[in-house]
């Protein structure tokens, strides 16, 4: 027996056991199972896309099954926040700036009968990025490709047993890590408001190309812009008298080149605040002020 190896194996097992306490299995019914993370004793997080619009699921812990209610989903970052009394203590999050490409992690999830552990590493750790669906992620984290569907929504834990990210499947068999800071931000918003407020302007947009003359007039680098093709009645945009055919040049000082830009610029604006929108209408620049609020339920 090699004592160094024995010690190493014991340390790995201890880490796996500790990480396993921070994850649960999620059963959506009809045999669809994936994993979730115990954020605190009453809150879970999991991969939003895997819920397929379910409003309740069953959560499997080492001590049995408990029901969970879905509080909120942010599809743009693939995070769903659930309420369930698991009785587990909850994870502690790793400091984001302590992570680096190449760090060893273990991905923990839970299947129907047992914990699932996969030893892996952080293939890439990079700066903040935005998803193709308009989500803002505080950090780029890429794990080894080919995550098993049963542990999607589980946690990637560092060697101290702290949560680095939630593991989700991205396009082309990639495995993405949703950083714990991003999850933290969403959880605290949901616990404060009871849901995830979505700032809303009330415009429908289509892309347009600006010609050189217009670009110079608007002092823009690129030729991509968006034109308003619809203003929803009684929306903030309607109150601010935005019209069909207006080009939205910038919002709160952020230049807008496409609908994704607008969605992201809006998400950074606190609800209820009034912001400046620069538009281009019938050959002239115009400044409007809109008061951003949530979409009222129809």
């Amino acid at each position, binding site marked *: 027996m090699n004592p160094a190896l024995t010690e190493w194996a014991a340390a790995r097992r201890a880490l796996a056991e500790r990480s396993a306490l921070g994850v649960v299995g999620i059963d959506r019914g009809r045999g669809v199972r994936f994993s979730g993370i115990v954020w605190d004793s009453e809150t879970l997080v999991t991969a*939003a896309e895997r819920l*397929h619009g379910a409003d309740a699921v069953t959560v499997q812990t080492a001590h049995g099954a408990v029901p969970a209610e879905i509080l909120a989903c942010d599809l743009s970052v693939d995070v769903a926040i659930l309420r369930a009394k698991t009785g587990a203590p909850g994870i502690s999050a790793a400091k984001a700036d302590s992570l680096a490409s190449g760090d060893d992690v273990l991905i923990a999830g839970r299947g129907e009968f047992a914990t699932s552990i996969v030893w892996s590493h952080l293939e890439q750790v990079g700066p903040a990025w935005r998803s193709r669906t308009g989500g803002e992620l505080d950090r780029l984290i890429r794990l080894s490709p080919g995550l098993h569907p049963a542990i999607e929504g589980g946690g990637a834990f560092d060697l101290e047993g702290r949560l680095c990210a939630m593991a989700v499947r991205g396009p082309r068999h990639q495995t993405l890590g949703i950083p714990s800071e991003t999850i933290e931000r969403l959880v605290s918003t949901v616990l404060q408001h009871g849901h995830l407020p*979505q700032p*809303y*302007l009330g415009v*429908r*947009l289509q892309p347009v190309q600006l010609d050189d003359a217009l670009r110079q007039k608007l002092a823009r680098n690129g030729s991509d812009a968006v034109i308003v093709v619809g203003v929803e009645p009684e929306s903030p945009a309607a109150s601010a008298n935005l019209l069909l055919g207006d080009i939205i040049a910038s919002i709160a000082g952020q230049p807008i080149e496409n609908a*994704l830009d607008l969605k992201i610029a809006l998400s950074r604006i606190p609800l209820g605040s009034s912001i400046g929108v620069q538009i281009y209408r019938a050959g002239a620049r115009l400044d409007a002020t809109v008061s951003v609020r949530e979409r009222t339920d129809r």
Partner: protein
Amino acid sequence: MEMIVAASSAAIRRALVELTERANFDVLAVADDPATLTNLLERDRDAAVVTGGTLTLARPFLSGARSANAATVAVLSDRTDTEDRVNLSYGGLAVLRAVPPIDRFQAATIATHTGLSVWDPNLKSAEDPAGSNESPLSPRERTILELTGGGLATKAIARRLGISPNTVKFHLQAAFEKLGVTTRAEAVMAAIRRGELAV
């Protein structure tokens, strides 16, 4: 059914082979230039041809297949206009928009074998300046996507609209197909990009 995959680009050939195999058709051979295709078709007169990419890339293979009277499926990613349709259509040719759903690909392939002509209504149209080739979302699909984007569960959407959860799922699936996406997040973003959902 036995198919010959014909395309000059390796990437397109790979995609077409994958599509053909997923549709449970046998890939008999792969041709990377029109001359090879002609030779293969002389040997196997019953094989159907699948080609694709842009119309320019597919054209030489299409004319090779036509002169051999082979049933042909073209999976096109670029825009086509009415003139293309008039010039291209003949019994035994199916033109589909990339990437077609498997069932549509299967149905079109079988149709070409019986000498029918197929023209996918979802093909991007050169006449449409906005580029919204795709059929527009129905008001119901739009409302459901809007609520989905707000993070609402299927049952909650169903309750709000007074319809069954299965109907909600049906509309969502129809919207996914129109938008060419597979996830809820992509559907919401694609609808915003197309100017069909408000931000």
